[in-house]
């Protein structure tokens, strides 16, 4: 009997991979077609840009030299290896190319420029037009052997022209997209972690904690960030992480207000009081019972935070106080566009990349917000 009872007991339902709530969120997300497609396009571009080194680089991906297989993309070989004398091998140099080709072979990435590679053979003074606007004679005119030169190939085309330092715009845009997105993502992640935590503590505990913290934030957010950046850049050479740290110091404030408000509202709800009466620790209450309430507000803000971080970086670069000279930066591209009105390919490339990137991110953010909104329903 006992066995039969066990046998006939209904099988414990298997937990689905996603909880029903999360399933609903996923449904909601997918229901926003624009956001859903944006996510895929963005992921494609982002993953592509993560492999920029294999797509646009001034080093071959693989080379064989005197029977040895080399990976110049990954390993910096001194030029002595090929009979030269530079500290870092210049694979674009015809001397080195001849040396390698006569002793083996090499496979180049589709674009033979990295973000700071100067194209020494531009047919016109920089900024040079996109290569497809020149005929073959003109395009190859600055190569040592002219049209017959083996370097005058598709891989050496500047598809989007060059900037005013004779660097390939396409390569710079590719690397610039990557650094902008990474900067934006890290900054958003960091500032939402800090901001949500700070807002939660204030809202949950209220009273003096809230009062003092609020005053502190008011003072803190009154500091003019741009001037501070100028001052700091006078002392420290600006770089990716210094900028990130500086921006992080101030951008977390944006989320505090909304999270605090949600926590203040919900801290005395009956279920919260009940949990408190049951002796649930504060931290658990905050995480399990209050945070989900604050999620919608937070997620509403996130896309703005993300696109805001990216445009801040871009504008700092534009002003010349961002990433150090030579970095792949979209702001610098726009600056160049402004200074070289006769080179529309700079402005157009910069505009398209930045606007597409920001729009995609905002669309995705919009869909995420829809997904987390408990009041929103889709058919």
């Amino acid at each position: 009997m006992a066995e039969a009872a066990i046998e006939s007991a209904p099988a414990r339902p298997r937990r689905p991979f996603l909880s029903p709530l999360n399933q609903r969120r996923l449904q909601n997300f997918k229901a926003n077609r624009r956001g859903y497609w944006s996510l895929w396009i963005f992921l494609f571009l982002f993953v592509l840009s993560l492999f920029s080194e294999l797509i646009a680089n001034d080093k071959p991906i693989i080379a064989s030299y005197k029977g040895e297989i080399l990976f110049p993309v990954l390993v910096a070989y001194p030029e002595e290896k090929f009979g030269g004398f530079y500290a870092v091998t210049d694979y674009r140099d015809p001397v080195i190319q001849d040396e390698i080709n006569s002793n083996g072979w090499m496979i180049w990435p589709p674009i033979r420029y990295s973000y700071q590679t100067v194209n020494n053979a531009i047919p016109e003074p920089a900024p040079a037009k996109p290569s497809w606007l020149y005929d073959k004679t003109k395009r190859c005119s600055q190569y040592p052997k002219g049209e017959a030169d083996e370097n005058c190939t598709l891989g050496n085309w500047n598809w989007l022209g060059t900037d005013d330092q004779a660097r390939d715009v396409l390569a710079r845009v590719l690397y610039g997209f990557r650094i902008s997105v990474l900067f934006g993502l890290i900054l958003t992640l960091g500032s939402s972690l800090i901001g949500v935590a700070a807002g939660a503590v204030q809202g949950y505990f209220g009273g003096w904690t809230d009062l003092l913290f609020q005053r502190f934030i008011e003072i803190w957010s009154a500091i003019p960030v741009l001037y501070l950046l100028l001052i700091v850049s006078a002392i420290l050479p600006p770089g990716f992480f210094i900028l990130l740290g500086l921006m992080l110091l101030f951008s977390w404030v944006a989320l505090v207000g909304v999270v605090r408000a949600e926590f203040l509202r919900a801290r005395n709800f009956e279920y919260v009081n009940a949990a408190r009466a049951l002796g649930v620790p504060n931290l658990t209450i905050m995480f399990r019972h209050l945070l989900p309430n604050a999620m919608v507000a937070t997620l509403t803000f996130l896309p703005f935070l993300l696109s805001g971080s990216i445009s801040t970086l871009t504008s700092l670069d534009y002003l010349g106080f961002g990433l150090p000279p030579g970095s792949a930066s979209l702001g610098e591209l726009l600056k160049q566009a402004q200074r070289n009105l006769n080179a529309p390919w700079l402005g157009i490339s910069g505009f398209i990349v930045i606007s597409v990137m920001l729009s995609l991110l905002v669309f995705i953010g919009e869909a995420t917000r829809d997904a987390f909104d408990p009041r929103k329903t889709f058919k």
Partner: protein
Amino acid sequence: MERRTLLPRRDFLALGAAAAAAALLPGRAFAETPTGVELHGLSAFGDLKYKPDFTHFDYVNPNAPQGGTFNFSPPNWGANQSPQTFNTLNSFVPKGDSPQRMEMCFDSLMVRALDEPDAVYGLIAESVTLADDRNSFTFSLRPQARFHDGTPLTADDVAFTFKLLKDKGHPDYALSLTHLDDAAAKDTHTVELKFSGKQSARTILNVVGFPILSKAFFTANPFDSSQLNPPLGSSAYKVGRWSAGAWIEYERVPDYWGNDLPVNRGQNNFGRIRIEFYQDRTAGFEAFKKGEILYREEFTSRVWATAYDFPAFTGGKVIKHEFPAETTPSMQATAVNQRREQFKDPRVRQAIALCFDFEWTRRNFFYGSYERSQSCFEKSDFRASGMPTPQELALLEPLRDQLPPETFGEAVTQPPSDGSGRDRKQLSAALKLLAEAGWKRSGDFVLNDKGGRLTAEFLVDDETFVQVYSPWVANMKAIGIDASIRLVDSAQYQLRQSTFDFDLLSAAFNFSATPTRDDLEIFFHSRSAAVSGSRNLSGVASPAIDALIDAVGTAKDRESLTTAMRALDRALRARRDWIPSWYLANHRSAYWDMFGFPERKPDFGFPVEALWWVDKGKAAKIGKA
């Protein structure tokens, strides 16, 4: 690409202290000029091209037709003038913005002859007499001199002007008057300027060109920038119509008292000179395209090479013409700061210089304009070339053991590259020099025996220089120098420059046509090496160079001055303290084809508004009559 830096006020003050500490050698200026005699002109060495009975300067057209309107963008400005706007018509005070060419409304005691390096001839002053100590100058004024309201211009006005400018004037004026002890009217037409004896040799040549203001006017009106009423002038032009901040017109005075003076003949030909103010040079260029502006000098290579494709130009109505630049010595170079341990060895400095591929830069960034600079006194007669002459050797020989051996061979030049951007020959030569200087390759960098990297950071304050220097930095990196560019804001740039806190820094300077000891000391003397704010950016402190500067300072005539300057140039170039960059050999002028101008441009100035005239025939041909 090119930036002219005047010595900022602050530096003068800092250097004043250094100069005071130095035992002053007897001033040689005017040593050859007779005292107690009435002179019609002055120059540093007493040599005057024009005799007392000259009728006009050689560089003007004495029969130039007069009239017409000249609407132009002035290429230069001084004192408190601004090319972008104006809010006062007083151009002589430190505050406010005044319109360009305001000084044109005022006559001066004497005027420069533009085909001589530093000669001045009497305008208001009929003659000048030197006192025996050569520190006082007595001017007798022309009795016919008049202000525009008809009142006579007297010695009182002159004395008043110099005191006023010394006390309240813009530093451009006041600084030259620092050592003026007194300006006194002896009688209605005689005035004396007395200097303390500490003044530089060139001071008086400068001071006699200052505008003479009306005592009556500035007694009745405050001497500051608070008002927008035209000060009473005395010259060929007076302020006509104007609209504050937008445009101003200078009208020719019909009954100008000095019309027939030899120093004026053939000049001031336009009936009206109009200047329009633009916040942005691009907007000014658009106005030029349309014919609103008739003359313009172009500062940007890119615009000069690419933007002149508008209808008026292709239709032949607008002309692009390059006029030779003034032959005053100029230096545009990169200072290698020898206060930094790693740059003490001249071979390191030479290696850095070899990494700069000027030919590539010129083709790809400069649109083929600019010339490679080789000398510290480029464009002038003081540029050394070839083997040293016996006279130069006479100066150099006693210093042989203190100077690099290259000084005594062919003048040092920067070798031209193959223009590929990565000239392997030059870079391997650079690497060899580094190796000789004790820098050995290890990994990606060259290291010294202590394992330290050879760092070299360019300090710049403008994006343009980031563009130009990036390939240079890339080449330095290629041979293992840890090179970088640091872009800072201009305040910090100024501070780090005056405290010598940089590795490499580029600067451009103009010397005067007759350099004095003071001019050169600021740049090259060991005394200025430690004075913050001096122009001795590379920290040259060599007794041999000091001795050569002395030789310049004590030159008795122009010929020995030239010899000494060339010897100094050789020594400086061989030491490689400065890496010469480039210079523009020409004025890039663009104008609507309706003007006549003298065939030959004077060597020491190019005041288009004074020398050119409207050619009615040409104007009619392009519909501008």
